[in-house]
């Protein structure tokens, strides 16, 4: 289902951004860490979109050469 896929994506992102932004857990998520997590999610999505778009172009280029 689509809901399960969204959940899986949030789990994956939480995992990646946890590893990148949280070194040692503290009393609260300070603003620097919040910014890091928030940018991590945004840049990860940008990366995925960049890759999906480029992949699409490669496929079209390959199809044009057939």
């Amino acid at each position, binding site marked *: 289902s689509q809901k399960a896929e969204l959940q899986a994506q949030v789990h994956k992102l939480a995992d990646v*951004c946890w590893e990148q932004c949280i070194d040692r*857990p503290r009393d609260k998520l300070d603003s620097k860490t919040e910014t890091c*997590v*928030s940018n991590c999610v*945004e840049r990860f999505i940008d990366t995925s979109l960049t890759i999906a778009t480029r992949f699409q172009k490669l496929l079209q280029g390959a199809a044009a050469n057939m």
Partner: protein
Amino acid sequence: AQELLQRMSEKCYKKCIVKPGTTLDNSEQKCIAMCMDRYMDTWNLVSRVYSQRLQ
């Protein structure tokens, strides 16, 4: 929530239990509680930013 509990257990075990002893000592227990709270904060923040971006 099963998946979240499993991921938190693994992440927080790895962060907090550097050398496993015969019990969870006090500082390990505090570390686990704090780690869990921060993991849930992170999860909620990720979920919020991701949802906003999807709209």
